[in-house]
């Protein structure tokens, strides 16, 4: 069982996870800058979620990614791939150097998730709203197995929850009482082009999940203790016939002030100098040694065709 002290993480463990979340943000910036494409805001907002899942709560074997007993994670908001790839690289699914092949023709890290080329990816994606159905399918599939203790996690965006497919899947998960299915909503308040509240409001959000038959936990999605507590409950306390959703209140772009709650940085590739400043800001913010963009002096090898938007 997971070691915890009175609902809080041991300090060393918290520090370890914080360092991982920090590294996820760093690698995301490196990746997006080098690849000149990608989604910074939604990668930053889920850094702690990914750290806590991949490094504490999920049972996985990166050296044997298809191990039957593993917990599965599907990133339904598949544009958050830089964050996910960063977490997976750090966890050992592939060498960290692979991040510089992000979005390259023939690389193993496709712009949106392509499971046929990335070891450890549990689904392919890109269009929003689909991942939860795939997670439901996996959870139903696990029921047929001899040792069905594995769990299925699915990370969704808040804007993504405008999609009807999400609610079809939510209904099915409750109908089939999939309490080994844990959805995590990265509730970062912003979608691609503005605030969720302005563009297509989803509140009262927890009520929606409850009305669809889910157990709801609401946490500060940047608070490692709170996340740990939520996933602890999701594992040991709540499962009794209802799927569980962790609504993680986060800040889109969390970590770099200019990106915070700013839809301009939903998808935007910084140039080298901007990336350098961002990375130094991240180091300051999270209390790590000053460190800039690793490839500041290398010419970007590709056209910056897609500079933003």
């Amino acid at each position, binding site marked *: 069982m997971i070691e915890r002290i009175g609902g809080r993480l041991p300090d060393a463990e918290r520090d370890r996870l914080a360092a991982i979340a920090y590294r996820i943000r760093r690698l995301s910036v490196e990746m997006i800058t080098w690849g000149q494409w990608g989604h910074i805001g939604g990668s930053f907002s889920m850094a702690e979620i990914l750290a806590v899942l991949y490094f504490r709560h999920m049972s996985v074997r990166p050296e044997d990614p298809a191990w039957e007993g593993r917990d599965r994670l599907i990133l339904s908001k598949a544009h958050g791939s830089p964050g996910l790839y960063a977490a997976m690289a750090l966890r050992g699914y592939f060498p960290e150097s692979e991040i510089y092949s992000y979005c390259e023709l023939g690389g193993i890290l496709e712009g949106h998730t*392509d*499971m*046929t080329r990335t070891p450890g990816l*549990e*689904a*392919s*994606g*890109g*269009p929003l*709203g*689909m*991942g*939860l*159905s*795939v*997670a*439901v*399918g*996996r*959870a*139903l*599939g*696990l029921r*047929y*197995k001899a040792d069905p203790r594995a769990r299925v996690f699915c990370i969704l965006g808040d804007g993504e929850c405008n999609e*009807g*497919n999400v609610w*079809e*899947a939510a*209904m*099915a998960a409750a*109908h089939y009482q999939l309490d080994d299915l844990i959805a995590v909503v990265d509730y970062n308040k912003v979608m691609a082009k503005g605030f969720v509240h302005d563009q297509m409001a989803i509140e009262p959000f927890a009520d929606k999940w409850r009305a669809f038959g889910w157990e709801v936990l609401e946490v500060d999605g940047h608070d490692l203790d709170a996340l740990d507590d939520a996933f602890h409950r999701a594992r040991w306390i709540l499962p009794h016939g209802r799927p569980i959703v962790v609504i993680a209140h986060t800040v889109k772009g969390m970590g770099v002030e200019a990106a915070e709650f700013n839809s301009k940085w939903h998808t935007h590739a910084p140039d080298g100098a901007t990336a350098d400043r961002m990375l130094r800001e991240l180091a300051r913010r999270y209390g790590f040694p000053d460190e800039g963009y690793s490839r500041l002096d290398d010419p970007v090898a590709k056209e910056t065709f897609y500079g933003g938007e």
Partner: protein
Amino acid sequence: MAGSDAPAAGRPKEMRDAFAAALVELGQELPRMIVLDADLHTSSKTSAFKAAFPDRFIQVGIAEQDLFGIAAGLALEGFQPVPSTFAVFAARRALDQVAISICYPGLDVTIPGSYVGLPTSRAGASHNCIEDIAVMRALPGMRVADAGDNADLRAIMRTAMATPGPVYFRVTRLTVPDLFGPAHTFTWGRGEVVIEGADVTLFGTGVMTSLCVRAAETLVADGIRAEVVHLGSIKPLDTDLVVASASRTGCAVTAENASILGGLGAAVTEVLAEQAPVPVQRIGVRDRWVDSGGIDDLFTHHGMQPSDIAAAARRAMAHRDGTR
């Protein structure tokens, strides 16, 4: 079958019943096969599978996007899902899920589409799919088949389940006369010469192959020996056979119970234009919605009767001979 007057007794069963029987047969052999339904199982006849293997039947309600997403998840866990709904809902309602959750990663999902072509109930345009061949053919890596008779359907299903990767096949509600014997097998990319002939080739798929046979029978009276080729495997297509037969006869007709835009007619003309350009006439739904009506009336209304095929054959021949 349109205009069929075979006696009820000796009649082959509705193709959906053959579908049901083959599903159950395959279910016995394949323990990882799971059938999914979106509130249509007694129409599509997946109900037979449900009765035989209640534990391997999953009902998802009226939610086709979820249907195909769940199927993807099951395939990812190593199962062989068969998500079943009307063709319109596979080819239109849930196309993004079929494309990206299933087809893009090449998952082993076998998709039957029922209610295809001219309305076999009186449900009309919204329920009867004429675009599915064009749509499914356009998805990279998707295999597409339309059975010529019940034996062909069974063979397609056996091959589909043994084929890794996504497959889409059509299940008509029409009762189709037998063309092939019980020993019939199906191979991707292989067509079948049903009748040999030298004057014109009639390329049929699905139920239209039977109508091509009847057209060929009527052409004989005029001394025209039409070759009838069944192209049950629409994608991949038997390009060698298509090219060989059309080159030999010098002209062709395509016939499909679907839109003539982008479907079998396109598949054949794409290939012939590249390798053996000859005059081709296409039979199928001519860019119109298909309304409720009697099935025989509809085949007449849309110019898809054997007589229409025969007329098209004559036009193609006249074109070849420069006499039009």
